[in-house]
């Protein structure tokens, strides 16, 4: 316990290194905007001022994934072909799509663990939970891949461009029923969600606005031959509409611009960013300031993040360890922190589902509610079991090399065997992880926990590390 008190005392802001923000602030910045930072990353950022640190993060973010995508992502299967298949071909096709879906989830998780810019992945996930689409309904992993690439490309770009692009994204068109929205028989699904969930929030528009906007979006469709967006003039309602007081022969693009012109749009997104990065209860004044910057910049997402990360509230001691890690943050963060080597990501993809965040398959268009809803007795025990097991990689491998275990494994169904094999292939070296801490053992709890532990973790070496991970505070960021 003494060692902890000393460690946290050394890191109080006043005692931090002369120019830089110090290790505690660096850890906070990196973990809030990424996945569990390692000691060497914290050391680099500790020397920067807060502003330098924020600028450095923002400058390094955005762009494309570095993990090679599965080979099939460019394939497109015309749905008309599916309709002509016999029952057996259909079964095989559906099975292939399900496997590809799992592969795609594994690809994204691998990117989150391997990326040089965790902020890019955090923002991609943020937009995935904002411009929600899910495999359950979209069904095509190829379309979900394209959407993921789009969200990453715009992750720190311009929100207005992102809104336009995400609205015409084929996965979104499927997810929110664009196909059945046509002149004379509008489907209001997209028109409602674009106002309620993507831009303004509930109560900032009327049911009439939704009805009129739905007509403006008629004609937005997908070309079945390519899976690309196409505008079908013949299905579009050309007549006059009125949305939020603006009238004309509006098209979908016009409606998006009308929504973007509402001050509520910047405030809505700013408040959501606040809950993601700062605290569970947004401060109205702080949100208003971020929203003003966001709007003035013409919806530049980097500008909004810069303003957000430089608010006093972001750095305030009372907001440290005030947010619950999402399953993705817990799993990707732990894998990154301890440099757990894995080949087949399947066990972690399934783990995310157990923990309540099945990436690319959100529960519904509202996305994951997050916060305290992440934790109930089942998900908490599953989190703890993961943390308990992740250090037993060696034990597992030894156990699985025994003849009896090998026989058992040979008898498993292919899926179960693949799962067990993936577990047996995990790599972790406690010694490598501990090396940077030699002579700096007091940094162990500082790196691993967002605040002093709730309990009194004790022990030596890896036993101490395991005790820290079992502490409730490890669930916080």
């Amino acid at each position: 316990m003494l060692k902890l008190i000393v460690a946290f005392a050394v890191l109080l802001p006043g005692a931090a290194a002369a120019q830089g923000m110090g290790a505690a602030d660096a850890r906070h910045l990196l973990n809030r905007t990424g996945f569990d930072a390692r000691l060497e990353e914290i050391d680099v950022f500790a020397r920067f001022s807060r502003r330098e640190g924020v600028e450095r993060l923002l400058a390094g973010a955005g762009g494309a994934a570095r993990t090679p995508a599965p080979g099939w992502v460019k394939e497109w299967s015309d749905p008309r072909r599916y309709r002509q298949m016999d029952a057996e071909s259909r079964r095989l096709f559906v099975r292939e799509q399900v496997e590809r879906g799992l592969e795609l989830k594994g690809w994204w998780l691998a990117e989150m663990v391997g990326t040089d810019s965790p902020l890019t992945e955090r923002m991609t996930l943020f937009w995935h939970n904002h411009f929600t689409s899910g495999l359950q309904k979209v069904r095509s992993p190829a379309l979900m891949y394209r959407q993921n690439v789009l969200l990453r490309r715009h992750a720190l770009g311009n929100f207005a461009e992102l809104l336009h692009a995400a609205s015409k994204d084929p996965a979104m068109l499927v997810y929110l029923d664009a196909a059945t929205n046509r002149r004379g028989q509008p489907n209001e699904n997209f028109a409602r969600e674009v106002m309620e969930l993507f831009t303004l929030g509930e109560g900032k528009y009327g049911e009439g606005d939704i009805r009129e906007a739905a007509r403006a979006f008629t004609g937005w469709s997908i070309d079945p031959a390519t899976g690309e967006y196409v505008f079908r003039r013949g299905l579009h309602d050309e007549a006059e509409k009125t949305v939020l007081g603006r009238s004309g022969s509006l098209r979908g693009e016009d409606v998006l611009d009308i929504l973007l012109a509402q001050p509520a749009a910047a405030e809505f997104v700013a408040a959501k960013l606040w809950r993601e990065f700062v605290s569970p209860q947004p401060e109205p004044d702080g949100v208003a300031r971020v929203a003003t910057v966001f709007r003035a910049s013409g919806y530049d997402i980097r500008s909004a993040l810069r303003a957000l990360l430089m608010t006093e509230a972001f750095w305030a001691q009372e907001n440290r360890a005030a947010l619950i890690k999402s399953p993705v943050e817990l799993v990707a963060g732990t894998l990154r922190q301890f440099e757990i080597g894995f080949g087949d990501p399947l066990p972690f993809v399934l783990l995310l589902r157990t923990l309540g965040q099945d990436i690319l398959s959100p529960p519904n268009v509202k996305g994951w509610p997050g916060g305290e809803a992440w934790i109930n007795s089942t998900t908490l025990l599953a989190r703890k079991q993961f943390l308990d097991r992740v250090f037993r990689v060696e034990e597992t491998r030894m156990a699985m090399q025994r003849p009896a275990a090998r026989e058992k494994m040979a008898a498993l169904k292919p899926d179960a065997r693949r799962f067990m094999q993936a577990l047996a292939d995990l790599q972790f070296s406690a010694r490598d992880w501990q090396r940077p801490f030699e002579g700096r053992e007091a940094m162990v709890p500082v790196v691993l926990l967002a605040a002093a532990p709730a309990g009194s973790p004790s022990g030596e070496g890896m036993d101490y590390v395991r005790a820290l991970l079992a502490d409730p505070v490890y669930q916080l960021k």
Partner: protein
Amino acid sequence: MERRDFLAASVAAIVLPGVALANPAGYRRLLVLVELKGGNDGLNTVVPYADDAYHRLRPRIALRPDEVLQLDRRTGLHPALKPLMPLWEARELAIVQGVGYPVPNLSHFRSIEIWDTASNSDQYLMQGWLARAFAGRPVPAQFATDGIAVGGSDMGPLAGSGARAIALTDPAAFLRQAKLANPVGNARNSALSHILKVEADIAQAASRLDAGTQFRTEFPRGPFGNAVRVAAQLAANPAGVAAIRLSLGGFDTHQNQPNVHQRLLGELAEGLAALKAALLEADRWDSTLVMTYAEFGRRPQENNSNGTDHGTAAAHFIAGGRVKGGLYGEAPHLADLDGGNLRHAVDFRSLYATALERWWGVPGAKVLNGRFAPLDVLRA
């Protein structure tokens, strides 16, 4: 509520205080909720087999009069529900027809949220209705826990602060894993406070739970049969638990309904029959109330895929040693549909009020945000 109803309710509460409040048994009486996930087709469960409109609306999937288990001259049960007939004949099975709510929502997610939180259709509540009940009238501290969700991790009516609740699939596995719970230290913010609460719920349940009872009853094979076994073991646990929630999934029968529905109702009926047998062994059948629920029923008109789409009101079952068996609510008015869907006859919150007021003796109005008349389905 009409002013007249309100007055009647107030008068009843003053004149007959016992009706609304007193119940010495309290939470020693167990409530078992069975969720039929996906939205069960009420019309093919409790079948208006003598109604021509029923056969007209469902030319392909309607059940014939000679197939159903006839309860009276117009109402019959799906043949797969045969294992429930002994309960019906023992008059321990109440069937409530037309359960729903005003301005129904046809989205799975939203509608189950309405049921789980006992909200109005246009009202967003965070806390499950059982969690609200337990927060207002606490369950005795020596109970293992207030409520247990068996199978799956969504807490449904037990979600939210205020109640002690756990989810488990296999008690032995839960007890093993529970050693990882670490309910130590002081809360410094609401996030940590929530985690510590869940850690404490796990630790307390694990320290008190003795769910190893072995029954002579044979439980059906499969996940639902297992869940029923676990529920019986939890019911027999001497430390006590006030509510258990089971779920049976797959009722979203848009396609090929007859086969799927047959299998699901069979699982349900065999499971409930086994539950009764096991609870009789444990001497808990008379102190257990079983209730089904679902986000909605299904559209009276069959669709083009040999199935049914999302609908509104449906029939639900209430069973137990103290239940007054029979038909309650109203048979479906198939000639008077609302936009193709059934109008509800009984608000689902009346079922909840029955559990709260008549079973536990907990005032319902505060939990349910309004007065809903309990059903007269229980023996004294």
